[in-house]
């Protein structure tokens, strides 16, 4: 037996794996003791029974390899090498924790040790893990990614999209399904008909291996093979490590859904107990040696707990930091400053359509910075995008950097997020605004929040482009919406909607270089017709509105294709002797409140116009802010003209009734002018 253990694992590695398992168990136990003592109060998802999996993997990967894990992930985090002090301090919600107390048990990040994401969304980590792998593949670094998830996550769409994409691109990643036999309160058998998760690998033409996750000796060969495959260009592996969760779903949870006999048996033969005995029986280690390891782990955890207890809670100023790179952009801070262009916009230029201006911006960004990459459906030549916005770019810059993707919005946005965590500036395209709902988890739960959840240790400088086909006719309810208010409602996202070709170029270039995730919505209605666009690289800063027409009687504020209706309305009003000032907001997060405020202070009347549904639209936010700031100075209540509260109909008759138009704007203005 001695030779077996030595030949399979090697003596030093076997002891090291045991040490990692003991440190994991000590950490898990101490957290639960503090919960039992009432000292800590939070929902904790214990990892008992799964210690051997990351301990074995850790012995096969390098310190700078990446790990992505899930809310039941304390074992993965300890094994990756995150300092125990920072882990425990995060559990206590202290400023010395991995995420300054902003992440907590479900969102630890430690980029120093390659622990890039811990997600609380089942399956949400896999698309991002792909992005990390893509980044390292593009760099040719040899780094690999270990993507951990549970058997429950195996049945969610994000995993399917991610595994297909990883196999397609042969990404350097190992998908580790830690099958602990239960998805929350539901058994494996009640979740899936397939006997294993690993067998699904065949569907992606990816090696799928199922191993005993209780035993380092049983796992090591498969783990090493998967790691080697990833590192040497052989692509991904689906590695299923079957273990047994030895507790209920969370600390304190009932266990009535679990097999009582199997649970008792499992606890008696817990991996850590069995492996310890193996080390002794095979004379791989002495009792004395193991006791020292166990004592050292207890001491480490005790010291970490003392460190946490004596650390400070984050100060109130931390509430608003790590949302954006610039804390001054947070709208709660009051009136945001007007963004000022760093350099003047060049004069002259050439006539381009909106779409050509977008292509020009992408071309400039790709040419200037090798870290800029494009991802999206149909974006490669010869198609060059559904509206040709990326035409010619894959031919010019190659299909590595201008990368067509499967129809997998979660995987596309996740790949962009992951690549951005590893230093790239990805521009993802999800084609149509309405399709962004398919990947809203990646956008709203991950891109928007990773900076905050990591306490500012990671950030997501990505741009997500999308069209809205509203009011161009015949696209109906699922291709025509203006969903900017959905995005703006999520702290951490910047939201941009240009109305002219020149703005589209200057704003898109700003987004690509922005340190935060930017949603760039392109109204298809603005794609028609050409206008002058300056040559070369210039930037229009986010949060700088443009006054399109000066006026003294009323302020009309809009953005995107709403500007066309507002412009027409202003002309009609002028003919009737009403002199409107017209403001193009250009971005709604951040938005240029100073310009709007100065205008409305002058005109004392305002209407906000947008193609999005009026109810709960951005107009409501702006109107409230104007009322708050100018109550008593306004001659009339701030008005709104948005789309009707209906889905968008196919029929042109109904479509034109749904959307705002110049006539409705004029009508609203005339009504407001009756207030004296």
């Amino acid at each position, binding site marked *: 037996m001695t030779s077996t253990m030595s030949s399979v694992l090697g003596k030093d590695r076997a002891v090291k794996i045991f040490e990692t398992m003991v440190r994991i168990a000590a950490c898990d136990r101490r957290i639960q003791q503090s919960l039992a*003592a009432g000292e800590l*109060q939070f929902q904790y998802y214990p990892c008992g029974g799964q210690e051997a999996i990351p301990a074995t993997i850790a012995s096969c990967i390098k310190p700078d390899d990446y790990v992505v894990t899930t809310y039941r992930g304390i074992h993965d985090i300890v094994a990756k090498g995150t300092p125990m002090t920072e882990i425990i301090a995060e559990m206590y919600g202290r400023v010395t924790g991995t995420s300054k107390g902003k992440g907590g048990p479900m969102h630890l990040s430690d980029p120093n040790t390659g622990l890039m994401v811990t997600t609380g969304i089942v399956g949400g980590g896999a698309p991002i893990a792909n992005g990390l792998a893509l980044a390292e593949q593009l760099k040719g670094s040899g780094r690999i990614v270990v993507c951990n998830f549970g058997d429950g996550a195996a049945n969610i769409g994000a995993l399917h999209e991610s595994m297909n994409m990883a196999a397609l691109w042969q990404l350097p990643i190992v998908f580790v399904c830690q099958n602990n036999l239960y998805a929350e309160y539901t058994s494996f058998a009640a979740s899936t008909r397939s006997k294993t998760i690993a067998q699904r690998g065949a569907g992606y033409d990816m090696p799928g291996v199922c191993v005993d996750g209780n035993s380092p000796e049983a796992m090591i060969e498969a783990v090493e093979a998967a790691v080697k495959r990833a590192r040497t260009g052989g692509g991904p592996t689906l590695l299923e490590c079957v273990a047994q969760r030895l507790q209920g779903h969370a600390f304190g949870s*009932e266990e009535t859904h679990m097999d009582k006999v199997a649970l008792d048996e499992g606890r008696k033969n817990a991996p850590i107990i069995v492996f310890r005995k193996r080390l002794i029986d095979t004379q791989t280690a002495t009792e004395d040696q193991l006791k020292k390891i166990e004592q050292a782990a207890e001491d480490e955890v005790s010291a970490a707990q003392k460190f946490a207890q004596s650390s400070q809670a984050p100060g109130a100023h931390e509430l608003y930091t790590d949302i954006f790179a610039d804390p001054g952009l947070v709208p709660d801070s009051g009136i945001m400053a007007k963004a000022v262009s760093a350099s003047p916009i060049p004069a002259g230029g050439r006539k381009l359509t909106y779409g050509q201006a977008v292509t020009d911006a992408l071309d400039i960004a790709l040419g200037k910075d090798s870290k800029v990459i494009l991802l999206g459906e149909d974006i490669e030549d010869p198609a060059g995008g559904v509206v040709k916005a990326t035409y010619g770019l894959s031919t010019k810059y190659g299909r590595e950097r201008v990368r067509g993707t499967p129809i997998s919005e979660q995987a596309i946005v996740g790949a962009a997020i992951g690549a951005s965590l590893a230093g790239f500036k990805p521009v993802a395209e999800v084609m149509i605004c309405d399709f962004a709902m398919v990947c809203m988890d990646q956008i709203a739960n991950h891109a928007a929040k990773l900076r905050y959840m990591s306490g500012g240790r990671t950030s997501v400088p990505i741009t997500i482009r999308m069209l809205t086909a509203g009011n161009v006719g015949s696209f109906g309810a699922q291709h025509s919406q203006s969903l900017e208010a959905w995005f703006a409602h999520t702290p951490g996202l910047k939201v941009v909607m240009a109305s002219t070709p020149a703005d589209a170029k200057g704003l898109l270039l700003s987004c690509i270089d922005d340190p935060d995730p930017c949603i760039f919505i392109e109204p298809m209605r603005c794609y028609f017709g050409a206008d002058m666009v300056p040559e070369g690289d210039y930037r229009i800063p986010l949060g700088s509105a443009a006054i399109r027409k000066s006026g003294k009687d009323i302020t009309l504020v809009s953005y995107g294709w709403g500007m066309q209706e507002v412009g027409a309305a202003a002309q009609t009003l002028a003919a009737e002797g009403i002199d409107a000032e017209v403001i193009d907001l250009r971005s709604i997060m951040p938005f240029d409140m100073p310009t709007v405020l100065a205008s409305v202070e002058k005109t004392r009347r305002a209407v906000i116009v947008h193609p999005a549904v009026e109810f709960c639209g951005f107009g409501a936010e702006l109107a409230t802010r104007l009322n708050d700031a100018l109550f008593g100075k306004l001659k009339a209540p701030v008005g709104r003209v948005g789309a009707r509260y209906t889905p968008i109909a196919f029929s042109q008759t109904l479509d034109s009734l749904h959307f705002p138009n110049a006539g409705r704007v004029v009508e609203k203005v005339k009504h407001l002018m009756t207030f004296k």
Partner: protein
Amino acid sequence: MAKMTLKLPKAAVSMQEGKIVEWFVANGADVAVGQKLYALETEKTTMEVDSPFTGTVTLLGQVGTTYQVGHPIAEINT
């Protein structure tokens, strides 16, 4: 030597209070980490809570009484 206070734990997201159903140890007994200390009844379930510390226990909470989460229910002199 330190006096550690045991408070009523939050054993579920929705838990606001819990009832001590039974103490498994006598007042003044020596207890070890992991030893079953008391049975706690919440709105969902009854769970057995292990001692988080080793030492001599002073029982503060009464059997049959419902306490708020965070209320001191025992002390352990370690």
